């Protein structure tokens, strides 16, 4: 029971980190970034390459992966999304899907479809309390995500850049009039989101050590669900949504049915949205006539 709970929180923390990327980008650019899941996968491969081929130690390879994904996120934003800033949201959505296909197929060409065994990044002994055994990966995941969440909350509420980010997501035009560089702020949001995705990729692959070009797809969809679950656009919402989703998934797998666990997760999402149509912590937007 306790170990299920810990596993759930650990999986949920990964979802929460991915969901943060979705929710920040949605909040600021009002777009569903479907390529986010594939950035996770690229992050995983980067860490895999630097440790397995180059023999780098853990910390530099994680930093390398974060660095590559941050740059990748900025490039994607510059080339594919920036020209569409004024276009309809559906056009942006399809472009994001195009980017997602591109990343998946590029990975397929570079690393082939054979699953790669992800190296063990966390070389620590498992924690044993009484008769409950907790894997070290779970503990590292939970601690990392707590640090990220605190850092991100501090960043958005205390720093100038973070405040600029919130201002742009409230009202682009007004933010520009106040002297905020809107384009640079959006670009930075993508950079942060993609960097987080890289960390999530490493954590995800440490817990489930098979790496394929499609690795990011399902966690991507689930984290997106988590972001909506908590109220999309809201940073605490994404954290709460992610962790709840992880716990529900692990418990559904353990007590109800392994095969139907995804169906149960999505069913819970639907029930929540029907009761509270803007998610758990989402703001209710009054309609102007």
């Amino acid at each position: 029971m306790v170990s299920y709970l810990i596993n759930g929180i650990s999986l949920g923390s990964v979802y929460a980190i991915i969901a943060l990327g979705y929710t920040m980008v949605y909040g600021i650019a009002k777009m569903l970034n479907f390529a986010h899941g594939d950035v996770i996968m690229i992050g995983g491969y980067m860490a895999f390459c630097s440790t397995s081929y180059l023999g780098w130690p853990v910390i530099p390879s994680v930093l390398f992966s974060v660095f590559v994904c941050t740059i990748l996120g900025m490039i994607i934003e510059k080339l594919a999304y920036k020209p569409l800033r004024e276009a309809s949201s559906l056009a942006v959505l399809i472009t994001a899907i195009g980017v997602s296909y591109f990343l998946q197929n590029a990975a397929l060409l570079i690393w082939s479809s054979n699953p790669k065994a992800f190296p063990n990044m966390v070389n620590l002994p498992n924690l044993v309390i009484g008769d409950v055994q907790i894997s070290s990966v779970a503990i590292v995941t939970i601690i990392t995500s707590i640090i990220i969440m605190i850092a991100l909350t501090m960043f958005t509420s205390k720093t100038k850049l973070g405040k600029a980010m919130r201002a742009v997501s409230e009202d682009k035009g007004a933010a520009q009039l106040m002297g905020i560089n809107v384009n640079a702020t959006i670009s930075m949001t993508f950079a942060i989101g993609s960097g987080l995705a890289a960390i999530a990729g490493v954590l995800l692959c440490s817990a489930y050590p098979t790496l394929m070009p499609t690795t990011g797809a399902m966690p991507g969809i689930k984290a997106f669900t988590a972001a909506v679950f908590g109220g999309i656009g809201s940073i605490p919402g994404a954290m709460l949504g992610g962790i709840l989703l992880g716990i529900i998934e692990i418990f559904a797998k353990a007590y109800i049915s392994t095969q139907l666990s995804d169906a149960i997760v999505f069913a819970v999402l639907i029930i929540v949205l029907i009761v509270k149509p803007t998610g758990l912590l989402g703001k209710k937007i009054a309609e102007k006539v």
Partner: protein
Amino acid sequence: MGDMNKKKLSKKASKSFVNYGIVICFFIVFQILSSTGHLGSSLKGQLIPICAYIVMALSLNLVVGISGELSLGHAGFMSVGAFTGVVVAQSLASSVPNGQMRLIMALIIGALVAGIAGILIGIPVLRLRGDYLAIVTLAFGEIIKNVLNCLYVGIDERGLHFSLKDEPSLHLEPGGKTILSGPMGALGVTKLSTFFVGIILILLVLFYIQNLIDSRPGRAIAAIRDNRIAAEACGIPVTKYKLMAFVTSAAMAGAAGALYALNYSTVVPKKFDFNTSILVLVFVVLGGIGNLRGSIIAAALLTVLPELLREFQDYRMLVYAIVLILVMLITNNEKAMTFVRNTIDNIMKKSRKEAA
């Protein structure tokens, strides 16, 4: 005034006749090509999937273009229709020996069951708006896939048996047959679909949607899309008409699914996942939202495109992705569009000059 009305009407009518014409020409050309043996076997195998995808694109256009709701779970209805169709076709194998008859029954029942799924899903879903609605349709699509992945159906003398666990728990009598076996899907399906029936299905769907657009309910649906509050204030029952568009679209997707499934000897639930929903959405958006002709052309071209890109071999899906991104960037860029228009005009002028 009366004259103008007449002109407008005839313009509309001729526009829809052009659409029927395109579909019929498509049929005749490919029929001739395949009977004279000019059609490669890989392209020939694509004909029925193309029909199914065209119907999918048309039906999704009804939701996305005309009703203005983003649906990301359209493949769910396709799979409901597909597996219902397979069960119907397989279980009637002995009582209805005529294959075409069985195919038509499979299409109709597939559409009905998908329509019922549409009602069940539509009632809760249509309370939500925008991206929340999109994510819930996505969730329903995943739920349908997940449940079908665990569904076992068998038949014996006592009738149909269902189970969500495994094959033995169907308790089939000796001589009974399993039709659906969970993640393995349907095995040993008799291929019934024909290109002709596919074309008839497209024409029927096209006829229905084109008439719906110009009817009272169609105008109500468009009014809700353009301004829900104003439409509500005019006394249009919003939920009723939204649900109507959603359910009709689901039923059409069901028929498309049955057509698609009965073209293969094995069908797995995994085929109808999120990626298929997205693929159909790509057809609709590239063809132009709300533009039926665009949907038909985009669905046909993009289904064949990966085949045409064969020479790029491993790179073909990469090229497909780049084409997709470039098309979206160019069509949404004023300067690029004027450039494209000007070049087309220049080429036209040149060819006219040369002709003269």
